[in-house]
């Protein structure tokens, strides 16, 4: 079993009456609710948390892309991944991912992911989500009916840019390039592993199966509801005669650990409430633009993650219901060990994307949650799926070859930028004089 510590980076300070006063946390949320000075603190707290997770032995650190919202403050997850390359040593950087249809041209993604792979010593997992309807259609203006075509074309271009040795021309419908010649190229050859995050579109199952990509299912209904989608995926894999390897599937799950079950309820209830009622408060009209999901997916009866019907399902749920229905796996380490093992077996899932900071959770609680999980739960789950080979994790450089940032020396009594530069240049002069 592998564990990726996933951060959504929410805005933690939406007002109490947010849900009543505003129609959506996404797309047209008022800008005056964001305070960039608070944002400074949040970004740095969140990076601290990810780095802490690295030190606690998680296999991966996860970040993702969203736009114009307070649910997740990473329009560019690549910036966060870049920041993490310098202070983390061990964990893989799971960028889940870049909504590739939004980049013009999409080789921008091939380039940035190659940079991240090189910077991190081959620790990158490249995620290619289609992106939510809010992000792609409403915020970035993509025509819903053409989004998937554009996505597939971008995928073909990026993979070819990584794997082709010589410059080539690309004559696509959405992108035309006379010269594609990627510099730098990734450390991982022929390319970094590709994970496809999905919310339940049936086409994504075929796409993953056909390309041998990992399917990462992101659901906020928890693992019991997630079963339907997981079964759909395994059905497709089985029909296509693929190995039913649990590591070819990831699942995102909110996990909240405390000393006891009672303490968990006390600690986490307000933050669950914040997450479901503020972070996921999306106006129904933005949830699913016509054409974003195919008629095939709609007819398959898979519920969207946000919007009226999703909200109706979650309405009036209390802590007990959230726990019982599997929206959250929470409680004492013992409870969490049992439920989580059951959940992962139930879904036949080898990569857990664990959400330990959600909604308004403050740093101290995140640290406790993470620490308890890492020491009291994770070690007891490592044996699960040990009979399978994980072919979807990065093939990185040997640990001893990964560069360590050099110590920074400067006169700490003089902290302005000019003196820093002066100190740095005098040092480098001293070095070259030797």
């Amino acid at each position, binding site marked *: 079993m592998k564990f990726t510590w996933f951060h959504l980076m929410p805005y933690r300070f939406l007002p109490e009456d947010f849900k009543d006063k505003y129609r959506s946390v996404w797309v047209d949320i008022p800008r005056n609710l964001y305070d960039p000075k608070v944002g400074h603190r949040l970004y740095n707290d969140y990076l601290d948390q990810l780095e802490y997770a690295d030190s606690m032995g998680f296999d991966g650190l996860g970040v993702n892309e969203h736009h114009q919202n307070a649910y997740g403050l990473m329009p560019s997850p690549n910036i966060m991944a870049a920041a993490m390359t310098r202070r983390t040593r061990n964990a893989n950087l799971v960028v889940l991912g870049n909504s590739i249809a939004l980049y013009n041209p999409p080789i921008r993604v091939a380039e940035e992911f190659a940079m991240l792979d090189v910077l991190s010593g081959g620790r990158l997992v490249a995620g290619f989500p289609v992106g939510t309807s809010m992000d792609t*259609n*409403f915020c970035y*203006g993509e*025509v*819903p*009916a*053409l989004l998937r075509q554009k996505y597939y074309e971008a995928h073909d271009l990026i993979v070819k840019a990584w794997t082709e040795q010589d410059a080539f021309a690309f004559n696509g*419908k959405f992108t035309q390039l006379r010269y594609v010649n990627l510099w730098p190229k990734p450390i991982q050859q022929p390319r970094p592993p590709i994970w496809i995050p999905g919310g339940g579109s049936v086409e994504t199952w075929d796409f993953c199966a056909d390309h041998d990509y990992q399917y990462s299912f992101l659901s906020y209904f928890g693992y019991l509801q997630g079963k339907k989608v997981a079964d759909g995926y395994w059905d497709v894999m089985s029909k296509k005669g693929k190995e039913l390897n649990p590591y070819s599937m990831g699942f995102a799950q909110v996990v909240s650990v405390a000393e006891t079950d009672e303490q968990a309820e006390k600690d986490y209830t307000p933050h669950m409430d914040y997450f479901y009622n503020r972070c996921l408060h999306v*106006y*129904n*009209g*933005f949830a699913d*633009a*016509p*054409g974003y*999901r195919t*008629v095939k997916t*709609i*007819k398959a009866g898979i519920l969207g993650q946000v919007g009226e019907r999703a909200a109706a399902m979650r309405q009036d749920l209390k802590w007990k219901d959230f726990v019982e229905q599997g929206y959250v796996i929470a409680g004492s380490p013992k409870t969490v060990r049992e439920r989580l093992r059951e959940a992962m077996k139930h879904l036949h899932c080898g990569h857990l994307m664990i959400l330990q900071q959600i909604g308004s959770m403050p740093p101290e609680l995140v640290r406790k949650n993470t620490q308890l999980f890492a020491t009291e739960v994770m070690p007891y789950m490592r044996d699960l799926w040990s009979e399978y080979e994980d072919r979807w994790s990065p093939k990185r450089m040997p640990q001893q070859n990964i560069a360590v940032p050099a110590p920074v020396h400067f006169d700490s009594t003089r902290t302005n930028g000019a003196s820093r530069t002066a100190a740095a240049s005098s040092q480098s002069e001293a070095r070259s004089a030797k």
Partner: protein
Amino acid sequence: MITTQKILDGKFELEMHTYGSGGEPLLFLHGAGGSLPSEPFLEELGHDFKIFAPHFPGYGESTGTEHIDDIEDAALFVHQVMDELKIPSANILGHSMGGMLAAEVAALDVHRAKKLILAAPAGFWLDAHPIPDFFAAQLDEIAGLLFHDPNSPAAKMMTAIPEDFKALEVMYVERVKRLATASKFLWPIPDRGLRKRAYRIQSPTLILWGESDRLIPPVYANEFTKLIKGSKLETIKQAGHMLMYEQQGAFVKAVRDFLKR
């Protein structure tokens, strides 16, 4: 009468509605919401004209939406339909998105539209007068956007929300199919450069607008009259965006008078 019209040897199959038997041909292009199984205003116009009202690919039973990506594809497709119907040049009436398409059809080939009637057409964007986001509108908001009187029988009939869950689901899937096609021409802003091409429209042109259109406000009518040389505007009172249903008499009279002139 409803028939299936194969276009390009079956690459497209159109659900073709025809009204009337005699008179000059009139091609009707429907709006983003689609067309009713039977259109009362076309029945009435059928007394004087032979009307062809195809459901656009992606609407009703019509197929081939995957071969159309943008407004140019759509306009050239209409040229092809006209050729195969043996009405290479005809009077054209378009409503809303269909009005935008009719204008493109006329601009891309000046011989196509004998006379052109644009009823509350889409196609332009004015920053000072943003058009409400029809795609994000909820079912219960639609009547208010489309009708002068959202409580009129016509409005209630056309925007009824089925109580039965199964019926609601069918309606939802149909709506998704229609608007997914429409998004190729209207998303995220219903402007695909008609402004550049409108000068090519040479046909005598009538612009019809509902006085209380809350979807595409009447101020847009001025843009059309300004950019299409010699065009004439007629505003219909007590009518919103769905003017031909709300004021059928006035609408039919305006069309008939213009075409008979």
